[in-house]
């Protein structure tokens, strides 16, 4: 559909290493309209960063798209796993904010130059104009002395400022889709809040579509209206953020919520998800979560588990026992689920 600025369908990514092929992202589909904010949550290694990188055509060596297609503003840029022009969109059409600004910024280049370089490349702006625009960008990002600070190197800035400078680098080109890969994970809560407000205000002001990847459920709850939960390369649940966090319909989502209770929750305890997500691998047949799942039954051990509509019209879950997930809440409240 052309109303979507970015439409990703059945994206599958595999990594080949020493002759072995591992599927790290399996059949992932999502679409965003201008101004949308979609969150993707999951643990490290679940494939969320891989998904973002695939959309920019910057997958690491050994990883490749095996199938799936991507439409950007109605134009097919990836068809059946074949890159058909992603490189042209990078920066101008789709921008990415990386997790670690310290390594994503060039340490020997002044931050003003790093911002204006993108403008010259993507927005066809002259040298002088791009420098002025870089200063304006820094000012809008809350830098107190942009004229002086645009001449500084990344190491001269604090972590929060570096992250903001990188957001400026990405957003100054006015991408229609802004991808954020854990942009606040390395920051303090107060700095994190500032960066989140900045991203949110940019989305509102420019109508860019936001795809925000994080393992922090609270951050997603603040900034995204829709959320998809990813486990072992697959979406296991998707829906409006408020509803999904209030009544999870996949046992993995339920487990994640127990591991990071709200700071206001009456019960401060953290509940670990039994088993080890990192030790499990993609070779498991059936539902990827079944070895750790408190609700697992025989039927979970084989077959495919795609997202299906459950409950409300906007809710999707990959769990065949999604109706029983609410029962897990009760068990935890009674203290039997430990």
């Amino acid at each position: 559909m052309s109303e979507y600025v970015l439409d990703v369908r059945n994206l599958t990514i595999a990594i080949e290493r020493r002759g072995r092929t591992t599927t790290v992202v399996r059949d992932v589909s999502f679409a965003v309209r201008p101004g949308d904010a979609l969150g993707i949550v999951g643990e490290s290694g679940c494939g969320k960063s891989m998904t973002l990188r695939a959309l920019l055509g910057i997958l690491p060596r050994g990883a490749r798209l095996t199938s799936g297609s991507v439409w950007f503003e109605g134009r097919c840029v990836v068809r059946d796993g074949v890159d058909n022009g992603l490189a042209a969109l990078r920066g101008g059409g789709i921008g990415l904010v990386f997790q670690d600004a310290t390594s994503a910024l060039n340490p020997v280049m002044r931050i003003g130059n790093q911002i204006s370089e993108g403008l010259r490349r993507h927005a066809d702006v002259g040298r002088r104009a791009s420098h002025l625009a870089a200063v304006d960008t820094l000012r809008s990002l809350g830098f107190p002395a942009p004229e002086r600070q645009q001449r500084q190197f990344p190491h001269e800035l604090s972590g929060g400022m570096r992250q903001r400078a990188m957001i400026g680098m990405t957003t100054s080109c006015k991408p229609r889709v802004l991808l954020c890969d854990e942009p606040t994970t390395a920051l303090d809560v107060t700095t994190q809040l500032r960066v989140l407000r900045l991203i949110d205000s940019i989305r509102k002001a420019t109508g860019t579509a936001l795809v925000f990847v994080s393992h922090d459920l609270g951050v997603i709850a603040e900034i995204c209206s829709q959320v998809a939960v990813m486990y072992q390369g697959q979406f296991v649940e998707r829906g409006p953020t408020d509803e999904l966090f209030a009544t999870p319909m996949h046992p993995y989502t339920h487990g994640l919520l127990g591991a990071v209770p709200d700071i206001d929750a009456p019960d401060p305890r953290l509940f670990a998800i039994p088993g080890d997500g990192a030790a499990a691998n993609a070779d498991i047949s059936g539902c990827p979560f079944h070895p750790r799942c408190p609700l697992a039954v025989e039927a979970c051990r084989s077959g495919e588990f795609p997202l299906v509509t459950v409950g409300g019209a906007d809710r999707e879950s990959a769990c065949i026992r999604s109706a029983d997930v609410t029962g897990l809440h009760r068990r935890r409240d009674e203290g039997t689920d430990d």
Partner: protein
Amino acid sequence: MTSAMLEVSSLSVVFPDRSYGPRPSRRTENSVVAVDDVSIQVNAREIVGVVGESGSGKSTLCRVIAGLQQATTGSLRYAGNDLAHKRTLADRRAIQMIFQDPYTSLNPRLRIGYVLDEALKVGGMPKADRLEAAKELLASVGLPESVLHIRPSRLSGGQRQRVAIARALAVQPQVILADEVTSALDVSIQAVIVDLLAKATLDRGLTLVFVTHNLQVVRALCQRVVVLHAGRVVEAGPVSEIFASPQHPYTRALLAAIPRLHRSASLLAEPTADESTTSAERTALPQAECHFRQLCPLAHERCRQERPALQAISAGHEVACHAVGQPEPSGDTAPRMSSSTGDGGVPGDRRG
């Protein structure tokens, strides 16, 4: 008090200005006061959280207690022994530190069995018993025996942190200093490690100082919490009390900045506060003022002239703020808080 396991009194750490060369300069305007006159008592078998932003001095404090960093002034006592100048072998064994980054705190070339064996050897265990003890340590942190034979590169972050905990426990310490041990880990693994630390501490009757910027974890694990800002203790007290009714404006701002899963109004809708002062910008701050002054909604004239002292407002709950304990104002000067954090008697008076 003699019952305190760890007693930090008026401890300061000053990093001298080295911008003119390797030797510390006599100029003091560029030196950084990382820990500024901090006094903390930790009782035996207590779990104390130390929270604050990066640059608040929490890691430096931890390193001083562990003996990795010299204090500039002040004293440090462990079980009554003065540690500031001389530490016996027994003192050093009794205080063990677990580091933030499990990827750099384990030697990549040493097998886990060797790492644990070395720690046990330092702990004075005869060679014949060490293999058995290493297996027991691994079991106590939930790792299989097979881990003995592999190198850290084959372990995940959570598994490495378990090894780091096992290594710290190997010398049978009395005090464990955990410096941001969960911040490099995923949320689900974080819960596991917090559980493990709590269990290890309780089972062995240890004292735990848990340094973190994650307030959710403090709430789940600790009994008492110390809030640091710009190298100073701004608030200290029982976890239940501080989370229910934070008194210092900084503690409130910290609690209010936590993203919430369920809230009526978005945190993002509110105006952006200025970025907090961190060590990078802290060089020129005058000593005789409140360092939170510029960001503080309750700041008044006195905050610029006088450093607020820690004063007890109830049993065990101390706050360093001129505005706390003053007559109750109309209420519109209170800093913004989340609706559900609860505001047990909002203090604050612009004139003091």
